[in-house]
């Protein structure tokens, strides 16, 4: 059984509770043991790196150091924003001068020995697709899905080192494996407006609106994302977007772990569909019930 340090990220405690719980559930079901990083703290997210790179690095490095204390060399997080900060910190700390500056802010210095990966990458690279296929009890046959990866999970490729920076396929492949019809969504890596929802809602309305429009264009019943911020902008703010753009989008936005959990037959309570703002029942209803054989 693969054992790996787990960094849930702050939003997993609040706005994306369902992402955290479904991630834990699917990992367990697929034989990936997540060990929480003890007493983890915030990575600093976008605000930190917009203020200062050393501060941002130190906030992330504290957590990398916590992983080192666990005696592990790999940490996984569901959140691409956390992932970017952890990986960027590690990338910048390859410069010894920078590393010294960053460590000067910390109680416990970070040796920079930990590799951070997204949960998606861990699942894509460490779990045999045949195993997933064999565990599917409710195939997603009948639902049309647009996979939206967000802007920073694969970019810049020199830092993120996973999948493709213009046309990532990890979620597409996973969803197809589960039996869903994956529609060719052209704006997989376009920005949704990121953390500007609060200070500049208009920006998010425009950018996320464009994504919803493109999703509707390709006939998607639902979006699948791997990012709490993307999910929040597309789902929670969908009504705001409709008001702002005089639109009437009603496209549910799932975390990929929710649909993966659904297909694996995991208890609905752990998947948190009820936490989604746009009612997912119509979309879920498109999934054909498996034949009553066996």
């Amino acid at each position, binding site marked *: 059984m693969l054992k790996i340090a787990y960094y849930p990220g702050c939003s997993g405690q609040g*706005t994306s509770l369902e992402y955290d719980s479904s991630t834990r559930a699917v990992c367990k079901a697929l034989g990936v043991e997540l060990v929480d990083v003890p007493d983890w703290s915030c990575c600093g997210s976008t605000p930190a790196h917009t203020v200062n790179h050393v501060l941002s690095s130190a906030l992330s490095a*504290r957590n990398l150091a916590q992983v080192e204390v666990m005696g592990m060399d790999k940490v996984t997080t569901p959140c691409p924003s956390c992932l970017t900060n952890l990986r960027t910190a590690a990338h910048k700390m390859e410069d010894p001068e920078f590393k010294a500056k960053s460590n*000067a802010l910390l*109680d416990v210095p970070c040796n920079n020995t930990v590799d951070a990966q997204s949960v998606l990458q861990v699942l894509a690279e460490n779990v045999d697709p045949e195993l997933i296929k064999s565990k599917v009890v409710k195939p997603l046959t009948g639902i049309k899905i647009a996979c939206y990866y967000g802007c920073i999970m694969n970019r810049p490729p020199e830092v993120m080192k996973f999948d493709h920076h213009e046309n990532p396929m990890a979620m597409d492949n996973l969803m197809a494996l589960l039996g869903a019809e994956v529609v060719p969504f052209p704006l997989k890596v376009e920005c949704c*407006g990121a*953390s500007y929802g*609060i200070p500049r809602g208009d*920006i998010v309305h425009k950018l996320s609106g464009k994504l919803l429009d493109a999703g509707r264009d390709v006939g998607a019943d639902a979006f699948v994302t791997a990012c709490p911020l993307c999910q929040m902008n597309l789902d929670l703010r969908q009504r*705001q977007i409709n008001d*702002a753009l005089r639109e009437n989008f009603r496209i549910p936005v799932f975390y990929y772990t929710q649909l993966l959990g659904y297909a694996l037959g995991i208890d609905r309570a752990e998947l948190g569909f009820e936490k989604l703002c746009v009612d997912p029942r119509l979309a879920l209803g498109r999934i054909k019930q498996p034949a009553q054989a066996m």
Partner: protein
Amino acid sequence: MSYGESLYQFGASVRGGGVSKRSIRYIASPGTSFQSTGRFAVPYRKLGMPMQIFDLATADQGFIAEVEARSHQNVKTCYQCGNCTAGCPYTFAYDYSVSQIMRLVQTGQKDAVLKSRSIWLCGSCQSCTTRCPNKIDVALVMDVCRHMSREAGYATERSVKVFADSFLASVERHGRAYELGLMASYMTRSGRVFTDVDLAPQVLMRGKLPFKPHPIQGREQVARIFERFRKGGKNA
């Protein structure tokens, strides 16, 4: 399409089937005003503001050198192809496009850069960095300009700065971001007390915002990061 006059309009050739003489669409030109709830959808610079004349001879060489040193990028390698601007999703909200910011840095126009709105609105989505033919980390240059702008005491896009400040204050206090507290703090500091109140019922009903922060044992450690940063790390 039902965006009215919004920027999603693709010209007559798409809508009517006929061919317009010119179906190219200028994202931020004055003719295509953005009529959503957006407050500053049309670039400020273009709202009848007179042009600014730059004196190239007085280019601030120190500024160019500082941006290059802090970003580890050679801005002279930029040949102004505009690929960053072409990919940037935020262009519609900017006062200077990304490639123009790069140009202003190249020509040492410190004031214009540090006072610009664009550097505050960059979402660090890495589109520019990923596609730059000269392999310049453009998003990093934007980031560094924002740092310098902040240090110089500017905050042209004040709400963005206030949000970042509120977020970091929350992290400093609790060790983790406490979303509800962050919202309250942001509303107080920015004076925009009605921000996203429309979302409150949805969020609270679904239990998405816990009423209490999750304090962690190491929060003093985190607080000390900020403390040390303020003491000496400013120019780090």
